[in-house]
């Protein structure tokens, strides 16, 4: 298995086949280097490492994305966090906690993203 294959396996585990298939289908010659890079470097290089379980990696990722106001990725990772075993209450708790460090506007808008995604998942 290459780092790309390992990465693709984790990416599918965390984000789900539906999302990853859609992302691959939307890949163009222009975006392929980036898609390959995140699959190999981020998913294959980092998410496969031992030392933190996937629940913890999800918690940490939600905190970072909240602080960065990276709402597209936050939406993906709220779904990923559910797939990694976090409860809705735990996801909200991570965002609440992060608000003390990143500020209330960051937590408020992250919470809106999380609520939208959790509502979507509930309606699936």
């Amino acid at each position, binding site marked *: 298995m290459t780092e790309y294959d390992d990465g693709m396996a984790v990416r599918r585990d965390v984000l789900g086949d539906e999302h990853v298939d859609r992302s691959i289908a939307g890949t163009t010659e222009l975006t392929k280097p980036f898609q390959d890079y995140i699959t190999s470097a981020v998913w294959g290089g980092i998410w496969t490492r*031992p*030392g933190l379980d996937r629940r913890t990696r999800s*918690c*940490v990722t939600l*905190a*970072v994305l909240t602080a960065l106001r990276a709402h597209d990725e936050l939406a993906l990772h709220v779904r990923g966090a559910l797939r990694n075993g976090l409860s809705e209450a735990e996801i909200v708790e991570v965002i609440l*906690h992060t608000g*003390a460090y990143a500020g209330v506007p960051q937590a408020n808008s992250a919470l809106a993203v999380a609520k939208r995604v959790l509502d979507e998942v509930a309606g699936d």
Partner: protein
Amino acid sequence: MSDRFERGLAAIDRLAADHAAIFDPVADIAPDLSRYVAEFAFGDLYTRPGLEPPHRQLLTIAALAALGDVRPQLKFHVAGALNLGVEPATIVETLLHCLAYVGFPRTVNAVGAVREVFAARGLLPVGDQRPTA
């Protein structure tokens, strides 16, 4: 003093040897700021159920790494994580995880701050947990 303040002080004391690192820098200019830190951050948040204290520390470290320019706070919370029994390698792993999201400069700077805490406690070198095969 309010219950929240007392709860906050107790939460800080569970994490750190004392709360001087938080209170002293603002004592003669904005004492209410340290009261807010105790009440809002530690009294309200750190006493909530729903996340285990070691997990809260890792989240805090991740958020601080994402913000950058927070060396004193990062060092305080890394020391707090160690005091709760979090392994040095787990703290490093948390920052390596953040690398993908916050980029190299903030990660390198965060690791540099963490290194100072580890060095002061004789915790260096930290072995790489990654299998070599």
